[in-house]
């Protein structure tokens, strides 16, 4: 399923907790409902943090990928 239309990309590689979720939150706030954000980070804690953030805020994660040391999340703005 590589047919996701990405509206914005956010590079959080190299950033430690809690910066990836903060930057994701800020990015999502500036986007419109239904749009898709691709967030890439290297914080392995994000594997637990992003689903927690998603369930609290209600912005669903449509897909998760791992590429080398990168963790990639496709977040849809609610």
């Amino acid at each position, binding site marked *: 399923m590589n047919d996701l239309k990405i509206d914005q990309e956010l590079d959080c590689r190299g950033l430690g*907790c809690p910066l990836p979720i903060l930057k994701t939150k800020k990015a999502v706030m500036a986007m419109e409902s239904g749009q898709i954000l691709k967030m890439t980070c290297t914080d392995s804690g994000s594997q637990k943090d992003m689903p927690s953030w998603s369930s609290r805020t209600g912005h669903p994660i449509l897909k998760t990928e791992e590429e080398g040391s990168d963790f990639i999340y496709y977040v849809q703005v609610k």
Partner: protein
Amino acid sequence: MAEPKKMALIASKGTLDWAYPPFILASAAAAMDMEVKIFFTFYGLPLLLPKIEAQVSPLGNPAMPMSMPFGPEWLQNMNLKIPNALMAGAPGFESMATTLMKKQFKNKGVATIEELRDLCMDVGVEMIACQMTMDVFGFEKKDFIEGIEYAGAANFLDFAADADIQLFI
């Protein structure tokens, strides 16, 4: 829409290591749509000064890992076991440990305290300076950053009574 979750924090410590948890938790909670207030009291109060001079002391803190933030990887990963009593006698040890910790954090992509505090402000975290501590230590409102509030214990408790999370840090 459901009422947002609330978190009430007390930041009572002003060393570099203890300055992190309130700002990390507050910013993360706000990013998760929670309403957050941090009450800065006693040694936590200087965390509201424009420039945060927080230091970390290995003295009396034997659990603190000490390692070099530069050099070959084997050296960086080695925990230097320096007896507490030796540190106590070494002048400048605290500023060295502080420099090393800041470097270590920077290497690992951790924000500085000031950056985290700015992010907290951006995402709507409310910060309250303890008026009584200000009076005791001789701080004035003009000493602190803008955008904060000034109050006492009752004001914090009023918020904390309805908060879902309350932490004393």
